[in-house]
């Protein structure tokens, strides 16, 4: 078990479903600086696969960690460029 990364900003998209967690994550990342880490709090179970797919297919972001705790899915995305 790795420890949770330290987040610079937190985005709360709890209660929202596809495509909002992705769209809002992208918007939040755009407002951050290189090296910043965004913590995304979601209740959409599809966000586990979607955030991973989005991070894989998008330049300048890296998915550091995904944590599932009950109904809460937390994602840590770093802005790398």
């Amino acid at each position, binding site marked *: 078990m790795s420890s949770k990364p330290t987040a610079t900003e937190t985005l709360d998209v709890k209660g*929202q479903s596809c495509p909002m967690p992705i769209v809002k994550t992208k918007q939040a990342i755009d407002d951050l600086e290189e090296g910043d880490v965004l913590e995304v709090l979601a209740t959409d179970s599809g966000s586990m696969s979607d955030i991973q797919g*989005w991070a894989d297919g998008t330049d300048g972001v890296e998915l550091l960690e995904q944590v599932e705790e009950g109904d809460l899915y937390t994602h840590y995305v770093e802005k790398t460029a």
Partner: protein
Amino acid sequence: MSTETQTPTGDGESMSEAELEARIAELEEKVAGLETEVGDDQKKMTIVATKGSFDMAYPPLILASTAAAFGWEVIVFHTFWGLDILHEEKSKKLKLSAVGNPNMPLPNALAALPGMDSMATRMMQKRIDENGTATIEELIDVSLESGVELQACQMTVELMEYDEDDFYDGVTTGVGAATALQHMAESDVQLLI
């Protein structure tokens, strides 16, 4: 010498190796140039939205806004009933058809009764609210914010006697099939919905 056609002389070999290296360098430069021209790996998607029922308004907008989050260049060309999605007033009154959908929990003979479409739409709207799914208006806003180009087919605008002011701010008007085809030809993904 004729026996040596398969194995070149020492001189010939070093010559061709140098030539080969020069050729490789030349080609690498050419490929690098082409990659810059294409703009790295930026993808393009063109969606043609033709349906204006409540349920069919969602897929084009969800895919468009998600693709924009991937950094893709996205164009949605709205034609025929698909144009109602961009019509500010009509987009808020899109209906779900209760008839002809075998997944509806009621027979077609009942579904055809007056008021059934409204009832089915209200049920779906309730589900959407409870599920935290975005409204059509929210998806249009977020799509435009993320740089998606929402195009209104000019022929349909005239056919339906709509006015440019009827559409959401930011919608592109004055475009036709030729523009849509041009974008499709340049796109990595083309969808007809």
